[in-house]
């Protein structure tokens, strides 16, 4: 097994270290209008209260990093993304994960960020590699590498591993060290493809064994289109943590998922004296 690498992210005042023997780092997914009609409508109306609220409550629920996405159809994404980030930085002090498919918006966001953010994301497509990686290097950020490329999303863990390897190598050529590449094995929808979960888990294990890098996942996708999603999500996230997931992008306000993460950390020996588990229990039962 390769040595486990440490990814460091920071805000102006706070540093977060991600590595395999510490508790799982929750990246809060809620600041994202995609598929959230209420947020979309609020942003379109220029109402940002919901964003501030989402930032505060996710951190209170245990998010250590916050994902910020400004994908509003028809909006000026660079401007909106900057605005959302500023909003979030006003009310919280956690590092941010800058979530955009638009290189121009990414550049704008990086230019105003103070600290070391996580960029979400690059993939193995030639166009993405050459647009995103130089920005990541220029601003000294870390980056999420999606295991897909010009040929689409590979169906086997081995092929996904190969895409991860290609991205890590290309990053290395620009001087981005492997510890600053966080791999996303892609947890697709089990509702459309029953093997989607298994493939994500096996890819995770392969990537960890081969490269020792940190692993993230949009860990709620897995249950799209199915009923009782939270039970699927919480079981899957625990299994993924065992496989090597270190920093899931998920909704920390779903208590089933949060509890599964805490229990998985405990089972993995990453919660000394079970202090996190006990603390969370007290917090839950205080009200």
């Amino acid at each position, binding site marked *: 097994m390769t040595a486990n690498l440490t990814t460091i992210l920071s805000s102006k005042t706070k540093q977060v270290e991600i590595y395999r023997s510490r508790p799982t780092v929750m990246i809060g997914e809620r600041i994202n209008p995609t598929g959230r009609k209420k947020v979309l409508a609020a942003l379109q109306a220029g109402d940002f209260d919901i964003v501030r609220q989402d930032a505060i409550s996710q951190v209170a629920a245990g998010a250590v990093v916050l994902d910020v996405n400004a994908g509003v159809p028809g909006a000026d994404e660079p401007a909106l993304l900057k605005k959302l980030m500023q909003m979030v930085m006003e009310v919280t002090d956690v590092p941010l994960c800058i979530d955009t498919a638009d290189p121009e918006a990414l550049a704008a966001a990086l230019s105003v960020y103070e600290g070391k953010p996580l960029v979400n994301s690059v993939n193995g497509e030639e166009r993405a590699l050459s647009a995103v990686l130089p920005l990541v290097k220029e601003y000294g950020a870390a980056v999420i590498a999606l295991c897909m490329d010009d040929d689409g999303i590979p169906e086997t863990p081995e092929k996904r591993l190969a895409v991860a390897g290609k991205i890590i190598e290309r990053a290395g050529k620009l001087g981005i060290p492997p510890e600053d590449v966080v791999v996303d094995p892609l947890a697709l929808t089990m509702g459309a493809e029953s093997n989607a979960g298994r493939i994500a888990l096996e890819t995770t294990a392969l990537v960890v064994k081969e490269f020792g890098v940190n692993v993230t996942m949009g860990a709620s996708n897995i249950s*799209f289109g*199915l*009923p009782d999603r939270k039970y699927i999500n919480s079981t899957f996230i625990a299994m993924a943590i065992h496989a090597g997931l270190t920093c899931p992008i998920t909704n920390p306000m779903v208590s089933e998922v949060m509890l599964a993460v805490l229990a998985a950390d405990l089972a993995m020996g990453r919660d000394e004296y079970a202090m996190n588990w006990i603390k969370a229990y007290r917090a839950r039962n205080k009200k």
Partner: protein
Amino acid sequence: MSRLYERLSTAVLEGDAEKSPKLVQRALDNGLGPKEILDNGLVPGMNEVGVRFKRGDMFVPEVLMSADAMKEGLELLRPYLAAAGAKLIGKIVMGTVKGDLHDIGKNLVGMMCEGAGFEVINLGFNVEPEKFVEAIKEHQPDIVGMSALLTTTMRSMGYAIKAIEEAGLRDQVKIMIGGAPVDAPFADRIGADGYGSNGPAGADLAKQFVGA
């Protein structure tokens, strides 16, 4: 006889891809017309799937199984439909636009259009604007159907329409679009001719386009 139609509908609804062609065969053996089998058996089954999915009573894996059952039945039926001279009322080229891999809904709409009497050429998913252009040149369809399920790929529909315009083919086809984030005002904005919210609506729209 109506019992047989009902059982066929149920087979589609339950996603039984083995039973569905068997029942189609039985119906044919009983002398029922291929068009009637389609209209009274397969299509109502699929319609009900759409209703239940929307209501949250059916889930994606079940929708996929139903689509499969419909497809198996339709495949067996197709040569009989052709032989019976069930005339095709038009031709549709259909695809999910560039950057988008969601093809379940588009395939359903395609099937409903086939059910309504269209020949459907399915371009698959992640279809580049130029691919639409080439397909129009090659197949000379009456209608082009585009699907997008992501807010980030909606605009690909506009690009595809622009490419069709630039190729000088826009007047030759009607364009209909659909997919969860899409609506009628958006269709207007990007210069499509219409929007359909589900399979039956898509088929109705297509019929309207060809005046059937």
